[in-house]
């Protein structure tokens, strides 16, 4: 190539053998910083509790060199809680990034699309209908929430289908289905026994309390498998930001890609809700803030997951330490997320008016 053609300073590539990727230093830097911050907050979260363990001791324990007392407290008592926060945060962040990208709308998060609402209604149904039977404990409840979220997601998808999927239509139908699910949840709570209501209520706000290792492992493996699928398939998502016709022109089978990625998004949200309850706003805020940090035009997947985890573990930490009465994490994320939602709405209005 002649010199003239090198004038526009284009992306530089990272090339290993026949493989190649675009080298984007800023994106790599922000991702590494986010990962480091997440790890730090994660460590602080397991350091602080009824009695505090020094951070160096936490790190020693994490690599298997710690004291036996620390090991018991960290591995048996605190680790499951922190890991559930990590898993649910990553799942919600990536789920939100996917739904926002596919609908081309920052408001399209799993909360808005009815997935979280469906999961909640199913979980509350199981809690109240079982009358304290074993099925309402941990695994049964998680499975119910996951199934409910998946079915509601599919319902919204097929109701929104009209010769293809339009983002705005998807959101409108999601909002309506969400409202119906909310009504069902309230109705179930009104009918239920008062002790079940208390239990359901606690779960509904979203909380990382009392998680066992078995629940953690189940969620972790499902989440990891889904994230792997998403990272591979999302390569085909990039041309889809330009609209269906352009995507087709660039050789993407957009209906298939969209269906697979939406299914992954619904399942990820389901995993998060079944692990931590319907923690609000993480899936909405995580992708939008990481997009602004990264200065990318669309939500970045990995960073959205990391930021989701940072937000959820951080909120849990704040809920346990700064706020009184050991408030559930969902209250803190709502306090952060509510104003951000207002900001997004106002900004959308300003843009439309301009």
């Amino acid at each position, binding site marked *: *190539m002649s010199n003239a053609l090198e004038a526009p300073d*284009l*992306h530089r590539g990272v090339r290993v053998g026949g493989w190649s990727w675009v080298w984007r230093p800023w994106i790599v830097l922000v991702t590494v910083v986010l990962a480091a911050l997440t790890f730090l907050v994660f460590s602080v979260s397991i350091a602080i509790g009824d009695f505090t363990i020094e951070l160096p001791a936490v790190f020693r324990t994490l690599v298997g060199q710690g004291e036996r007392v620390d090991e018991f407290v960290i591995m048996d008592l605190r680790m499951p809680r922190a890991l559930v926060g990590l898993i649910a945060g990553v799942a919600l962040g990536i789920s939100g990034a996917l739904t926002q990208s596919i609908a081309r709308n920052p408001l399209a998060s799993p909360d808005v699309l009815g997935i979280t609402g469906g999961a909640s209604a199913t979980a509350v149904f199981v809690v109240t209908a079982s009358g304290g039977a074993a099925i309402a404990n941990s695994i049964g409840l998680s499975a119910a929430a996951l199934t409910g979220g998946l079915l509601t997601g599919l319902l919204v998808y097929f109701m929104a289908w009209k010769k293809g999927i339009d983002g705005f239509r998807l959101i409108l139908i999601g909002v309506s289905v969400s409202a119906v699910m909310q009504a069902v949840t309230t109705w179930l709570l009104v009918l239920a026994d008062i002790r079940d209501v208390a239990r359901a209520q606690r779960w509904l706000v979203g909380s990382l309390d009392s998680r066992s290792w078995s629940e953690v492992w189940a969620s972790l493996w499902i989440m990891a498998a889904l994230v792997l699928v998403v990272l591979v398939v999302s390569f085909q998502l990039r041309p889809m*930001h330009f609209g269906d016709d352009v995507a087709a022109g660039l050789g993407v089978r957009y209906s298939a890609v969209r269906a697979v990625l939406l299914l992954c998004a619904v399942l990820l949200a389901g995993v998060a809700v079944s692990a931590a309850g319907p923690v609000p706003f993480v899936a909405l805020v995580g992708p939008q803030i990481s997009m602004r940090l990264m200065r990318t035009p669309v939500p970045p997947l990995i960073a959205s997951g990391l930021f989701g985890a940072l937000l959820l573990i951080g909120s849990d930490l704040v809920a346990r330490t700064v706020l009184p009465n050991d408030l559930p994490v969902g209250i803190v994320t709502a306090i952060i997320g509510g104003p951000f939602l207002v900001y997004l709405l106002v900004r959308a209005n300003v843009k439309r008016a301009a």
Partner: protein
Amino acid sequence: MTALRNDAARLGAEGVTVGYADRVVLDNLDVAIPTGVITTVIGPNGCGKSTLLRTLSRLLKPRQGTVLLDGHDIARLRTKDVAKRMGLLPQTPIAPEGLTVADLVARGRHPHQSWVRQWSSDDADVVAKALHMTGVADLAHRPVDSLSGGQRQRVWISMTLAQGTDLLLLDEPTTYLDLAHAIDVIDLVDDLHESGCTIVMVLHDLNLAVRYSDNLIVMRSGSIVAQGHPSEVITSELLLETFGLQAKVIDDPVSERPLIVPIGRTHVVSKSDQDLG
């Protein structure tokens, strides 16, 4: 309809019928796109010209008949292989806010990439060339939403060019542009043709179509009513029958093409009336 079995045609349709729901838009239509020239589809609103372009580009699946690309039934080719042979610019592409020109044009390499091969040195060369050919190299790091309509259209054409095909389908590339920018964009299309591209486009502006095309396809209610060089095709009778447009066809003072002068109900001096005779 002499060009039905044009051996030189890389792209064509045989007996295609296309419709939405209960409405048939194209009815048993045959067409062949001659290679190496600019073909423009014209016709009144709703005549099916965009539908024809969308069918040729595989965005729409015909109910009957086949579209042939390089001798293959396009429905049987892999989507990715179609994208390697044919570039497409649809009517309303979306550029996410903040996306830079370089990033958008680079996406044109998608059909040649895979998960493990996302940015080869070939990609860099082809994108640089596409940016230069379309005159947007200086804008490479600007966000697309900060550009004027004409510049934006150049950028989108640059992206289809980065696909590395010499067959380009453009659906109304001059919509929403003022005349100066429309001429600018069409001049660019002509440059691409000069460099060896086969172009098929849909245009609304009849005089632009006449001036820049070597081959016109005139459509009315889902059928092709005339096809050929503008000098042979464009007559006042055809304009009246196809578009319901009263017009005089004169020699264009600046090109060797016809020029359409529309006659409205007002502002026409009597001299023209007598000429129409």
